[in-house]
């Protein structure tokens, strides 16, 4: 059975979620906050009724709980296997505490496996386990780690537990990595790439496209670096951006944008920078500055002014919108003399036209979703 991770895009590339009662490896780069990533998933699982078990080798339980609380993640009833406090010579009130020092991998690994097995057997019901983190035990050798996990998988199956193993690749050999990956049911890769000076995190499963994400105050969010909003003078571009983004800034004089609008969306699992252009021809030179490396374009037109549609198409061309995913927002649909959607589609010759009213905040979010779907379908990195 597939179970949801709470990260919609991740569920999609996994064909519906992660397999229950299985071993999942998150193989990560060194700059990724893998703990937070897995805590988001754990929180989702707890909300869906699983018991959460957290095995920690690097941060004491109090630090983990604090991080989860700050992101608004659910940690109700979570059971801790504390494998770090003894090493730090700290007291621990966790249900299971490792006595061995993690600096002595042989002993620590053996005892950790025993504690984990005990926790799995003593905790009733469906369980999701975060094993944070596996590479600490690589001192015993990749072969041994892989062999022991193979045995552990039977216990996962028997105790109805799904285990998320977190593993940072600090430069292990290809053979060592293969050893660990091959024993897992699923391997999800989390890493960082640099594209023209932007450092971006992504997750990837198998040969799937790399999906960009950021971990924000509300959790793991899919990241689209840049959306451009353009369209003729007076179409309602600034209003569209203001209705999309609570924290937006406009540079305007006498009610018309003269340089740019900027907004930042952070909601519904998405983060994105939005740039708005002026509409008047005398500012067209700025289109070139703002339209570099854009991921998607929203073309806003005034539904009551079909005479401006030619200009709209010209602007789309100037920002090279035809080469990238774009949608049309047929704005001011709340006005009595607005043209019908069909008419607008016919005059423009575009299919993806969404009726909107920026002032009434209607159709805006639906339109954005359509654009994002187009971006994810077409744009890969």
């Amino acid at each position: 059975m597939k179970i949801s991770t709470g990260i919609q895009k991740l569920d999609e590339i996994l064909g519906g979620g992660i397999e229950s009662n299985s071993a999942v490896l998150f193989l990560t780069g060194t700059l990724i906050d893998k703990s937070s990533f897995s805590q988001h998933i754990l929180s989702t699982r707890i909300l869906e009724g699983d018991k959460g078990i957290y095995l920690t080798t690097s941060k004491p339980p109090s630090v983990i709980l604090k991080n989860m609380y700050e992101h608004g993640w659910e940690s109700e009833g979570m059971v801790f296997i504390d494998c770090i406090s003894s090493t730090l010579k700290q007291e621990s009130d966790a249900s299971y505490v490792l006595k061995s020092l993690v600096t002595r991998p042989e002993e620590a690994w053996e005892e950790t496996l025993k504690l984990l097995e005990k926790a799995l057997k003593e905790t009733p019901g469906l369980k999701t386990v975060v094993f944070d983190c596996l590479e600490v035990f690589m001192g015993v050798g990749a072969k041994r780690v892989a062999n022991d996990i193979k045995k552990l998988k039977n216990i996962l199956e028997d105790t109805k537990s799904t285990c998320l193993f977190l593993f940072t690749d600090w430069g292990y050999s290809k053979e060592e990595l293969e050893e660990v990956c091959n024993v897992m049911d699923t391997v999800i890769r989390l890493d960082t790439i640099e594209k023209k000076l932007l450092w971006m995190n992504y997750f990837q499963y198998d040969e799937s496209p790399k999906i960009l994400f950021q971990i924000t105050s509300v959790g793991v969010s899919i990241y689209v670096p840049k959306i451009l909003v353009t369209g003729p003078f007076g179409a309602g571009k600034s209003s569209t951006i203001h209705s999309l983004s609570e924290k937006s800034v406009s540079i305007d004089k006498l009610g018309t944008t003269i340089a740019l609008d900027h907004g930042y969306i952070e909601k519904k699992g998405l983060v994105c920078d939005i740039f708005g252009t002026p509409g008047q021809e005398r500012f067209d030179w700025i289109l070139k500055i703002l339209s570099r490396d854009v991921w998607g374009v929203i073309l806003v037109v005034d539904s009551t002014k079909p005479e401006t549609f030619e200009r709209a198409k010209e602007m789309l061309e100037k920002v090279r919108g035809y080469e990238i995913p774009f949608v049309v927002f047929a704005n001011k649909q709340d006005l009595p003399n607005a043209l019908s959607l069909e008419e607008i589609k016919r005059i423009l010759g575009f299919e993806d036209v969404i009726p909107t009213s920026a002032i009434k905040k209607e159709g805006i979010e639906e339109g954005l979703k359509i654009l994002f779907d187009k971006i994810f379908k077409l744009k890969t990195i």
Partner: protein
Amino acid sequence: MAEKKELEDVLKELEKIGDIIGSAIVRRDGLLIASGLPSEVNARAVAAMAAAIVGTSETSTKELEIGEFQQVVVNASEGQYVAIGAGEEAILIALLRKNANIGLILLEMEKAAKKIEKLV
């Protein structure tokens, strides 16, 4: 590939100069690369505007045929703001205290911009 930390180190080094309140590296198309601006500043919006300011200034420089663009300095009643190019892809900005020694700061910013250019 440059590490983000290296760029952040360039900013930290620059911010050691007393009269610099904060600084940031911005991509020419307006996205924020690294920020050392005060946390209450909307750095993403400032980044977008910096790209527009520098882009506009460069275009004007060309249009007016007055040679090579060098920097933009914004003078305000409570402080100053400087933006310079840092290679083909990036812009370096700095927020300065009122009455800051702008000559010295520009010199240091030029050095930092060269470092950034090499890193990226």
